[in-house]
């Protein structure tokens, strides 16, 4: 009897999980389907059966260059992530291992900047970028992406570093390790999984960031987000081509996410469920 209930529960739970997964995944699935429809099919209304043409992908590539924004996306997401780690690791380190009375406040303050609507600072930032000649430059955008993701990077790293037991560091101190040896031989090897998760997540966040990347670029530094957006103008909407462009934009990060999902899940739940 107990067993029958368990099996039924399992079936229901599995079905529910699939349903939720489908709901979440559906927009991506529909983008995929639409990308292999013809333009008339795409505007005809809801349909899950495409005609299976790959014409849109060819058109997208011939009309606009895919490689350049792709390279920009790679450079911006990786570059901004490395910058964020260079700043984030020492900051999180200091806050985790020698906290002061104000450490919690500083952390909260950093997080609170994420609660601010980005559009509220659009004009000042745009003007600053214009005055410093950073508009439509990779370096400018990399700095921007670094700054907006830095709070999350520091928070994640802080959580990881906090998980490293203080006694291990004290043991190293008793064993005669100086500060530098403590960092190189003990702390860094133990923090590597946490740093890797932070790196992966930040690359994804930077890759997907579309508010600033679209507004602060035109052509030279435009990443894939701007590439997608460019299909929604000026001759009207071409849903099928837009979908093809979107698919090409999300494919690299989707593949990367697939291969690193174990690390990511561990990273996102680290500290919360231990």
């Amino acid at each position, binding site marked *: 009897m107990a067993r029958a209930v368990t099996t039924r529960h399992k079936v229901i739970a599995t079905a529910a999980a699939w349903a939720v997964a489908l709901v979440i995944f559906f927009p991506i699935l529909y983008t995929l389907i639409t990308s292999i429809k013809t333009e008339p099919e795409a505007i005809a209304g809801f349909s899950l059966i495409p005609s299976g043409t790959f014409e849109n992908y060819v058109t997208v590539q011939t009309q606009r260059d895919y490689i350049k924004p792709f390279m920009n996306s790679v450079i911006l997401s990786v570059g901004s992530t490395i910058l964020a780690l260079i700043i984030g690791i020492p900051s999180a380190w200091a806050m985790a291992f020698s906290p002061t009375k104000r450490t919690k406040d500083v952390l909260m303050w950093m997080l609170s900047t994420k609660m601010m609507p980005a559009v509220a600072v659009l004009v000042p930032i745009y003007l600053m970028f214009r005055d410093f000649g950073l508009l439509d430059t990779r370096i400018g955008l990399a700095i921007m992406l670094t700054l907006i993701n830095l709070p999350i990077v520091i928070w994640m790293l802080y959580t990881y570093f906090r998980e490293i037991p203080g*006694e*291990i560091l*004290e043991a190293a101190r008793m064993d005669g390790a100086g500060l530098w040896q403590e960092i190189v*031989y003990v702390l860094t090897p*133990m923090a590597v999984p946490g740093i890797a998760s932070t790196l992966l997540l930040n690359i994804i966040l930077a890759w997907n960031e579309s508010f600033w990347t679209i507004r602060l670029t035109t052509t030279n530094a435009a990443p894939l987000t701007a590439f997608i957006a460019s299909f929604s103008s000026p001759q009207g909407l071409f849903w099928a081509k837009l979908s093809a462009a979107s698919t090409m934009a999300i494919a690299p990060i989707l593949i990367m996410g697939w291969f690193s999902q174990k690390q990511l899940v561990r990273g996102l739940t680290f500290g919360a469920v231990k």
Partner: protein
Amino acid sequence: MGSITLSNVSKSFGEAKVIPSIDLEIRDGEFVVFVGPSGCGKSTLLRLIAGLEDVSGGRILIDGQDVTQKAPAQRGLAMVFQSYALYPHMSVRNNIAFPLKMAKVDKAVIDKKVSDAAGILNLTDYLERRPSQLSGGQRQRVAIGRAIVREPSAFLFDEPLSNLDAALRGTMRLEISELHNQLKTTMIYVTHDQVEAMTMADKIVVLNRGNIEQVGSPLELYSKPRNLFVAGFIGSPRMNLIEGEFARSKGAKTVGVRPEHFALSHESGLWSGIVTVAEHLGSDTFLHVNVDGIGQVNARCDGEFGARHGDRIYLTPNETKLHRFDEQGLAI
């Protein structure tokens, strides 16, 4: 050599005075146990000696040298932590070798010392494993190995056995005592477990609220507790502390009777009471008795004593083994 002297040592965390002022002399080769209830400052005191915390006042001398301002590694001490604090990303071999590597010891010497320590601690077959692949007892032995190779002037143990199960704790207790006999190095051992304190120590330091209540050999503390705190803390099951008419008749505010210092009988005795709980262990019998006019009393006797819940029994305290305490709780 490893004599340690604490002179007027105090420690405050912000407003809170954890250790008001402590003077203590530890002789070379002694096995000293700091014991006390949680929060009594015993771990803090150990960490002050280790150098992991800075003293707020006073001086710490090791072999006559003032080390108060020295870094932990320069004090020549080794510490074994409650959580073992092994380096999880290193093999057992590298864990044990770490302090030697930090001291830039020659590689051949490191290998020799590591294999010697592994031999002493039965870790030879596990040298290539990671700490996560070891049992709790093995991990603790690795932590001890890491301490041994440094050839410290004293070992500091911070509740090293409290994460182990009861059986293993017994074995490890013996191993640490044997190690002390073998190395003859000063050991300072912190625990809240008085069985560990009684069985391992040459000298026990009983701490309460950052103050030393009494220093002495295990049997001294057992037979001559200086005050009520030590009387209640040392000995298991704990001493019965009796006030009222009986105490006054002995010329004291409080009289202490250890559970094992009663003569038990089914027929007659000085006190009579009803058994509330009887614990039969075969080797001993523990009785919780509600004594008329006195209250709840614990009694222990060797072997089996046939009494059950609800039985009336008679107890006579051994007059020669009574402990008497005055108004201030000090022994008379």
